[in-house]
């Protein structure tokens, strides 16, 4: 008897140990991540005012109002995110490719350099660009002194500044997954392509690129999602003409104390991101990407 029991009792004990290990952390995430987001759905259906309190009235109209009122910011957030994701892909792919294929013994050092910006606070990094791009700062000021630019030329407070800031801040998020995908690529596949008289271009298009698509997908998500919700770059580098959905959420929640509106915009932002991710996965056409 004592011999037959152990395997079952051990696996059952193992299972209860597993649940014990999971419990504290999962509970934390349930209470402070899942519950707030669920709760926020009900917040978005409330009406009232900050002074008199908000009551749940199942007011779905808020969503329509919000889309009507903030469609500029919604479209702008999505357009900026698309441009930034595409830009990061264009800048990041050759960099990741170079590190993976030509890095040699310097691979880890190069990767470390790519993540070096993370050792500087996000806000300070963004402010640095404000220094660099300032109207009379080191770049524009100098060019203006040499009369290469008109005196009223500016980059700060334009869409270009916001997009450039976002692109800078999220480039490493694109490079790392691309590197992981390219690094896994078996060099003998490329040799095979060469043996079969493929030129470098075809070898890249038919072998390297398709095999790196999971990295492209992961990198795009890691860039697109945070960019769509960002408001730090738009606040520090932009103007009232470059506000994104994140700015609106922040304003409604913290300044206007209009929690239902802020909650509704948050859900619209998440819905927009989900639709974007779904369409993108279909476009890339590989179902195993997500697996």
């Amino acid at each position, binding site marked *: 008897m004592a011999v037959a029991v152990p395997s079952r009792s051990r*696996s059952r004990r*193992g*299972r209860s*140990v*597993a649940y014990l*290990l*999971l419990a504290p*952390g999962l509970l934390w*995430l349930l209470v*402070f*991540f899942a*519950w*707030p*987001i669920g*709760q*926020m759905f009900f*917040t978005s259906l409330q009406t009232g005012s900050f002074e008199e309190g908000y009551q749940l009235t199942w007011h779905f109209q808020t969503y329509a109002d919000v889309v009507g009122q903030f469609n500029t910011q919604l479209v702008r957030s999505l357009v900026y995110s698309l441009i930034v994701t595409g830009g990061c892909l264009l*800048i990041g792919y*050759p*960099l990741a490719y*170079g*590190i993976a294929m030509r890095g040699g013994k310097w691979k*880890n050092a*190069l990767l470390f350099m*790519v993540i*070096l910006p993370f*050792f*500087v*606070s*996000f*806000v*300070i990094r963004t*402010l*640095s660009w404000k220094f660099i791009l*300032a109207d009379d700062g080191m770049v524009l*000021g100098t060019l203006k002194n040499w009369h290469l630019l008109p005196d009223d030329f500016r980059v700060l407070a334009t869409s270009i500044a916001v997009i450039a800031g976002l692109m*800078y801040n999220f480039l490493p998020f694109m490079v790392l997954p691309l590197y992981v995908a390219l690094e896994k690529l078996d*060099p003998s596949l*490329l*040799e095979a392509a*060469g*043996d079969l*008289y493929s*030129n470098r271009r075809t*070898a890249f298009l038919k072998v390297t690129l398709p095999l790196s698509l999971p990295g492209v997908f992961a990198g795009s*998500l890691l860039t697109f*999602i*945070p960019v769509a919700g960002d*408001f730090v770059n738009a606040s*520090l580098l932009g103007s009232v003409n470059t506000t994104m959905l*994140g700015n609106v*959420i*922040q304003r409604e*929640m913290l300044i206007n104390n209009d929690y239902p509106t*802020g*909650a509704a915009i*948050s859900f619209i*932002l*998440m819905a927009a*991101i989900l639709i974007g991710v779904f369409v993108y996965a279909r476009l890339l056409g590989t179902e195993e990407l997500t697996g």
Partner: protein
Amino acid sequence: MSDVEAVLTLERAEPGIGPRRKRKRVGRKGWVLPVYMALAIAYLFIPIGVMILFGFNNFKGKFNFTWEGFTLRHWRELFIFRDLTIALENSLLIAAIVTVISTVLGTLIALALTRHKFRGRSGTNLFIFLPMATPEVVMGASLLALFVTIGLARGLVTILISHIMFDISFVVVTVKARTQGFNTEWEEAAKDLGATPWVTFWTVTFPLILPGIMAAAALAFALSIDDYVVTTFNAGQTVTFPLWVFGASRFGVPPQVNVMGTIIFAVGVVLALLNVALQRRRV
């Protein structure tokens, strides 16, 4: 030997025999890509260099935008802004507490996910992934709505709660990467030699996954000390370092911020390099 193989070996031996198309070597060395990589990495370094440089700028006006000469004044007078110093202390305190709690909670989850089979494991994996895929602004706003609903005053405690929340997933993923890799034979051996699960864990498993835990703790600390978005929703009257810097940006950021940023940067880089060196020696 099959025909195909014969053709292939011939091909290898005498390239001239094949069709008269020139075979180009894939992965040929060139200078364009290395130069591009150097430029891209230089681009990543620019704001870091600007931050460090302008901590030494002897500027007179209100805005620290143009170079006006070298000084160590701001390093000597690092703590002259009382509220900035308090903000930095708050950030360090918060990051320390958050790192300990989130590293413990996340490591436990990672162990459960990789060392145990249980129902709902793939669901748990997906759930762990969700906070990393949710925009920070949504997490911050929803926590704010929750705290308002349940009437919890915002301050140090709510900041701690929110940072632990977004750190857990990153810890799980980082530790998992380590626990997945090593084989379980060592643990089996310990058990065969009569070690209890408790002893096995502390003498075999824990030392093996310690580098992963250290890396996770470092990441948790970095994410916490750097966070602006989630914190701004849940800080109340408490000010952290990123919040102070963001607020100051409207009327000109004092160079002390550059100096503090430089110190945090240097400490982070040194610790990361030490961690790498230690791991190398262990292997």
